[in-house]
């Protein structure tokens, strides 16, 4: 028994991992909590060219590793249940897990909020060598934009080309959005997902309302 204890002590964790969520009795407040989107959705128009929804309280994890290290790629795949996309600007979705290529050595993983710690722990359990796993769930939120005029709103907002010939379903880019930034992924023909920073989310929500006014904006809760 004492040997086992000894063993545990010598492999003191080289990184600090903490489950950051309280128990279910405490409700988290997403970055757009103050906007009371449920009421807006209830009272607002039901048809329009653009539909907005905040995918609130999702789990977001940044993963950094060496994409040329096959062992690390394998370990990440084992932890996530899906292989990391190594083609620039691509993403993969499998079940509840979606992974976005951010940079040659960086991926953004999105999972349901309550799964974040589990996935984070799994990554730590599988990975070895030089890597970084950071839970950033509190720092970001996800906007879903869809509808017939979604491309028109995006063209007012971002400088990247969103034409389907160069921005097919599944493509993901980090870029500017209005005077802030966003990680934009095309999740469907007329559906885009924006991962945005918490502190800018109110500005971006205002911007999207303004830019979609001429098309009519439907808010979904």
């Amino acid at each position, binding site marked *: 028994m004492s040997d086992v204890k000894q063993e545990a002590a010598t492999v*003191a*964790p*080289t*990184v*600090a991992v*903490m*489950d*950051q*969520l*309280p*128990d279910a*009795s*405490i*409700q*988290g*407040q*997403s*970055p757009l*909590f*103050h906007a009371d989107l449920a009421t807006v959705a209830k009272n607002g128009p039901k048809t329009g060219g653009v539909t907005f929804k905040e995918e609130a*309280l999702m789990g977001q994890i*940044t993963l*950094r590793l060496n994409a040329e290290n096959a062992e690390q790629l394998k370990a990440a795949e084992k932890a996530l249940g899906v292989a990391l996309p190594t083609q620039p600007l691509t993403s993969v979705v499998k079940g509840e897990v979606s992974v976005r290529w951010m940079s040659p*050595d960086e991926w953004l993983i999105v999972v349901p909020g309550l799964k974040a710690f589990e996935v984070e722990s799994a990554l730590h359990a599988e990975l070895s060598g*030089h*890597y*970084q796993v*950071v*839970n*950033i*769930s*509190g*720092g*970001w939120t996800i906007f879903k934009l869809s509808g017939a005029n979604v491309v028109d709103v995006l*063209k*007012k907002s*971002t*400088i*990247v*080309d969103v*034409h389907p*010939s*160069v921005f097919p379903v599944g493509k993901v880019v980090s870029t500017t959005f*209005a*005077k*802030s930034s966003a990680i934009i992924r095309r999740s469907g023909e007329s559906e885009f997902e924006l991962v945005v*920073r*918490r*502190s*800018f989310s*109110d*500005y*971006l929500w*205002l*911007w999207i309302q*303004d*830019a979609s*006014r*001429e098309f009519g904006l439907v808010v979904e809760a």
Partner: protein
Amino acid sequence: MSQKNRLQSGGRIDRSKPLTFTYNGKQFEGFAGDTLASALLANGVDIIGRSFKYSRPRGIVAAGAEEPNAVMQLGATEATQVPNVRATQQELFSGLVSGSTNGWPSVDNDIMGLLGKVGGKMMPPGFYYKTFMYPATMWETYEKVIRKAAGLGRSPNEYDPDTYDKVNQHADLVVVGAGPAGLIAALTAARGGARVIIADEQNEFGGSLLSSKESVDGKAAGAWVAGVVKELEANENVIVLPRSTVNGYHDHNFLTIHQRMTDHIADRAPNGQVRQRYHRVRSKWVVLATGAHERPLVFGNNDVPGCMVANAVSTYINRYGVVPGNELVLMTTNDNAYRTAIDWHDAGRKVQAIVDTRKNPTGALVEAARERGITVMTGSAVIDVQGSKRVTGVSVAPISEDGSKVTGSVKKLSADTVASSGGWSPVIHLSCHTGSKPVWNEDVLGFLPGKTVQKQLTAGAINGTFNTAGALEEGKKAGLEALSKLGLSAVEVEVPATTEVKESKAMALFHVPHTKPTSQAPKQFVDYQNDVTAAGIELACREGFESIEHVKRYTAMGFGTDQGKLGNINGMAVAAKVLNQTIPQTGTTIFRPNYTPITFGAIAGRDCGALFDPERYSAMHKWHLENGAKFEDVGQWKRPWYFPKAGESMQEALNRECLATRESIGILDASTLGKIDIQGKDAREFLGRVYSNAWAKLPVGKCRYGLMLKEDGMVFDDGVTSCLAENHFLMTTTSGGAATVLNWLEFYHQTEWPELEVYFTSVTDHWATMTISGPNSRKLLEELIDGDVDVSKDSFKFMDWKPMSVAGVPARVFRISFTGELSFEINVQANYGLHVWEKLFEHGAKYDLTPYGTETMHILRAEKGFIIAGQDTDGSVHPYDLGMGWAVSMNKPFSFIGKRGMQREDCVRAERKQMVGIKTIDPNVVLPEGAQAVFDPTASIPMPMVGHISSSYWSACLGRSVALGFVKGGLDKMGEKVYYPLVDGRIVEAEICSPIFLDPKGERQNV
């Protein structure tokens, strides 16, 4: 009022839709399809403004973007005022309110007119330089008078009620201009599958075909145009932009397009619609099919209303059904302009004569004119015109074959309209925007686009191809070439049949000779808008300005909103003649963006009002709003500045917040601090290289303050970094420096030390951070900790951190202090920040937990002598200047960033400005930040300045002012006097002291 110049039939206007509009307070009527200019001409309005320098009456001379005179002020209300709109480009709508821009106080009778001659003398060429450069103090006065008199338009004094926006476009091909060349180029590219944008400044596509009687493809030109437009509009890969001016062509095929979406409908955009849109376009290829502008000839009094460009007269007749006069004299150097006399004649009005500068013109159009019985005077020119508010007659004289002099006697003809044509100038403005130098072409008698690095093709009149058949051929060729460059396959496009007209050779004439020398002849205008005459250009050349760029600046030729559309070539020809050189030798000036004026609304787009700049909020922002916080901008963050209670002044609120914190407990939302998660086995080594102090031995569970320097040794950021685990650190930065610091770390990692195994990820937004500070803070924390965590003095020491659960939420708590008090910085996942914050208030009420903002934070830290990077540092102070040598470890094995820089000669000299505390002798005086220090208050001005105040506050805790400031050699001058002469004349006496005003031993935080 009757439309006395309106024809009974013909044109593209709709006579069944009359529209009333106002011009200079009077009501007029026009028709749907009119421009403001055509409607004014239909009503016989001759004078639409007064000229810039000489205040001469001016009329409409052109029919498009090149119009120099009819620059209008529009707007029915104060809020909808728009200056600098060309009447020739403004479509008429019912209720349009317009006024002339120039002409003060009225266009018909004005004071400047009476002073006209004086005005002229006052403003010779070079007038900007001669008059305004000296004396400088008079500039403002002159500027007011001249601006008012010259009338450059005015902006509204009220908020614009309309919405504008910007759209980012990406295309395979942008076609600029929808005349025959542009249309067929776009059609070809579109059929080949390219993503095409075609833009034209006019309301209708068709370009020259709109005012032409030609047939295309065996039908009226308009019918062919309509067919092409229909096909383009039906193609989902084509964006068709009418009323859209391509205003700028920038690097790497980036174009800006100004689209006027509702300006033709009403004074204000109908509800919900966007008034103007600014397209920012990145295109793989560009076809410039921008056409050409006809050049007027330069002759005496050629600015009298009634003098027009020949093709403009045809446009008014053929497109708008308006004949702008009764008796026409046409002066031309070419066959093409004969069409104008024919159109005039066919409209049933009198053509007095065609005055052809050539000896023996023979083309088909010449014959057609003669067949109609029109008098053609060859080898002659209109040397000047009579009349002041309208042409009343012309002087015609024979001229030499080279056009250099008058060779015979002068004959007078009666006329109210003089149309002139000196040939056509290709519209090369856009091709010049990217720096391409245009090239003179002797056959075209104009400049053509020169060599370019842009992916640019050209077609039609811009190449000097002035006939429709040629333009169509070139347009198709450009479309096919674009397809090939884009890697798309060629397609079949049939070039429609047109009728060929044989033309005889044109004559190169720009400046018509007079019997008198240019300097004594009646004024011969080159640039109407800037009132530049041939004599003015001659004078400039004689005064030694030989470079055309200098002539331009000296005379103002081609300045401003005009950009030399009508006048530039003529001006160069005049200069060339004086300088006795050819036009290519003289060269041309470069046209700049924008091609025509663009509104500020379109430039601002949606980035105004609440969306002017992003506002960043912390997770507790809602609470701050509900609790009456006043906010301060820190970068883009809105941070609580202070929390006034009802009736409290700012100073009262600060006093209360400071005392509450020092006596019981205060709380600060510190979420805006930059936070960077750093992991990797070399993280420690990396920290040692980017911070000035040592990190090798910082144990897990400990925090350390560090200064970050630039290579020159100067402080640029600071913060506390904590060791979370052996290879895991959390770095904090200043709120404003977060992005810069992360970028700095990445820069060094990626470009200098890629071998170090370390990763950086921003977690600024992820953690909500709240700092409780004050003697009761431990008690409050203990109440909220779940489970068994010891936060007592000995087991949770100063500069320790521990994970614990606060108010039910997992937290990392750092025992660090920026106030000098016992402090705990609680970090929780931001989605739970407000919950924890509110719980702290629930439990903190009994300790009178007091929220404070950035101002109290500043006061509390200044009492302790803690610096704020960016306030007490300005990029010129190193750690020793700050008295912070304790934060530098010179013995680290790696030469950290800033170490070598700090050892430069200038950094180690004596008498550097050093940061010290400043105590005013009168404790009630709070020095203004920025106040300059002197040692000798009796020294004569300029007094030798020896430093300045960087931070200064009233300290309620100490009952006196406290200040931090820089003083030459200050660290060795403790107790010595220093003086601050202020702008109000006071000289404040102060004493140099330690920057630590409160609790120098640090006992308050060690409890």
